[in-house]
């Protein structure tokens, strides 16, 4: 018995809520919806009165809704077109004319005219994102009307999420994840919210386009070293580092030298957006045929790699040491694999600025292609390597 009582007590709030909701919903109408008001006119004994003229007046807006005469069962009704009704509570005065020994009587009924449901979208998303990166998009859908919006759903591109029912003034926020395209530029997110209006069943829909920008990014690395050194002689070489992107780029630099000391140099720096810097280093050639310098610059998942080979001359050689920057650039190799061991032809000419731009651009493309999210672009990476090789070949041909 106690358990039964508890169950009923537990149900009580639900039942009360339900009854209140039903009462509130009973006399609500969405503006534009046709509302039927039906009355029954009887005498003191409950017997129907026939032929009584019944007037229906919207006191709030001062508009007569309509007039009807009771039928043989005492019923009269009007259909109120609420298209022009002011949103809010309306008092409908219902009164009967005095005639044939039937006095005038009146009553009132309250009707709440709701403004139509109106879905609105707002978006919180970064204005600029990096290529191929996933980024979070928070979509807030709000029902700005007074009628409830049912079964609201929000779509972002191909993804759809349900927001449930939105009462008047309610809003909910949904999270989506979008992926930036490969190429820098201006893009937009297409958002669509849809639902059904309570009361009328009208289809609700609104859309929003939000633009965002995919940033440029990339890092370029080029080694400048003399084409030859004498055995046991110290020489200088430098790394030209460029940040092609729009954000500051912290880089860690790792230089591996073969045939020279030190065998490894580590460095780090942060490059401002769209800036370049040259880092200079010294090494000493040891007894070997050549010095191979390979450098790797890495910032996050951006990497650039370059390698040069310097010819080592005998210590008693009279061949003058070439200026820095004349070293042979080794064919580009993937940074994750072992550096090439072959000896590339010497290329004593300075490198032009245009060439540097091409190289860095290609390097960037190559490095980007090796990021985990870009495995699908391996073909593109290979193409970039071919372009780089061709460009370097052209450079050597044109060198005086």
């Amino acid at each position, binding site marked *: 018995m106690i358990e039964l009582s508890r169950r009923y007590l537990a149900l009580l709030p639900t039942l009360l809520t339900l009854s209140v909701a039903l009462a509130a919903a009973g*006399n609500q109408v969405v503006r534009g919806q046709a509302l039927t008001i039906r009355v029954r006119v009887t005498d003191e004994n409950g017997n129907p009165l026939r032929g009584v003229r019944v007037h229906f007046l919207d006191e709030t807006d001062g508009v007569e809704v309509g007039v009807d005469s009771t039928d043989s069962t005492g019923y009269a009704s009007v259909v109120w077109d609420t298209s022009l009704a002011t949103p809010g509570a309306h008092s409908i005065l219902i009164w009967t004319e005095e005639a044939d020994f039937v006095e005038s009587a009146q009553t009132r009924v309250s009707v709440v005219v709701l403004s139509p449901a109106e879905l609105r979208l707002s978006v919180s998303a970064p204005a600029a994102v990096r290529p191929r990166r996933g980024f979070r998009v928070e979509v807030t859908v709000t029902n700005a009307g007074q009628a409830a919006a049912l079964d609201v759903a929000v779509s972002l591109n191909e993804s759809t999420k349900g927001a449930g029912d939105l009462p008047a003034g309610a809003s909910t926020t949904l999270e989506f994840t979008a992926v930036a395209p490969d190429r820098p530029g201006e893009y937009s997110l297409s958002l669509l919210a849809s639902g059904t209006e309570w009361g009328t069943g009208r289809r609700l829909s609104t859309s929003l386009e939000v633009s965002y920008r995919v940033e440029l990014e990339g890092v370029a690395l080029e080694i400048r070293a003399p084409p030859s050194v004498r055995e046991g002689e110290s020489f200088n070489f430098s790394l030209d580092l460029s940040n092609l992107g729009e954000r500051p780029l912290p880089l860690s630099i790792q230089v591996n030298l073969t045939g020279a000391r030190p065998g490894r140099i580590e460095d780090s720096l942060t490059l401002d957006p769209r800036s370049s810097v040259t880092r200079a280093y010294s090494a000493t050639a040891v007894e070997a045929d050549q010095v191979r310098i390979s450098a790797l610059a890495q910032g996050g998942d951006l990497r650039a790699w370059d390698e040069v080979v310097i010819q080592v001359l005998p210590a008693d050689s009279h061949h003058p040491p070439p200026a820095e920057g004349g070293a042979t650039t080794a064919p580009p190799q993937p940074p994750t694999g072992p550096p090439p061991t072959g000896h590339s032809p010497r290329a004593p000419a300075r490198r032009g600025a245009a060439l540097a731009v091409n190289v860095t651009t290609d390097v960037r493309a190559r490095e980007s292609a090796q990021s985990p999210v870009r495995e699908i672009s391996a073909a593109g990476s290979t193409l970039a390597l071919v372009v780089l090789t061709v460009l370097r070949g052209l450079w050597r041909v044109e060198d005086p």
Partner: protein
Amino acid sequence: MRKKHLAALLLAMAVAPALAQTKVYRGDVLTVSGVIRDELGNPVPGAEVQLLEGATVLDSTTTGSDGSFTLSWQVPRDHELGPVTLTVYVPEQPSLYVEASSTTLSVEVWALAVLTASGPQRIHRGDTIAITGSVQGMDSGTVEVRRGGVTVATGPVREGQFNVSLAVPSDWPKGPLVLTVTTQAGSYVDVEECQVSAELWIRPEIVVTEVSGG
């Protein structure tokens, strides 16, 4: 005050037969007229004639040159109801050589209850209305309010006034309505009833049975 006229023919030395019973109401004036004649049928002028109730002289007069006379009596408002014997009496008059003679008249004294009443013009089912009025000629008793011969309310008369409450039944039809106000008549009491006109109106009830959007 109403007047009631009786004719009497008195013959000297002979008693005329009694007249048929006459109904008079309290307050009425009863008039008795006649001619005094001698045995030869000749009028007797200058003779005294009296109207008596018992030994009480109600009126007296002297006959004219043609022997005619007229006597009158206003029935007192507190006069006992019922039959009354009146006597037309000619006392002995030596100067005229007329001996005493008399004849009797039988009358009935009645009371007349006259009702006046008023009530609301518009009544409704379930209302309790008041019918008020007065009864002339009756200080106490009971009044009845009737509709279609059926008594629907009663009330006492106090000092000639009454105030009867009537609960309007729920089955009375709408429209014009006539109520009759009367009273129970006792012996030798006549009633002049009255009517109260009213209209029964319906107070409609409006029930909103549906408010729904379409």
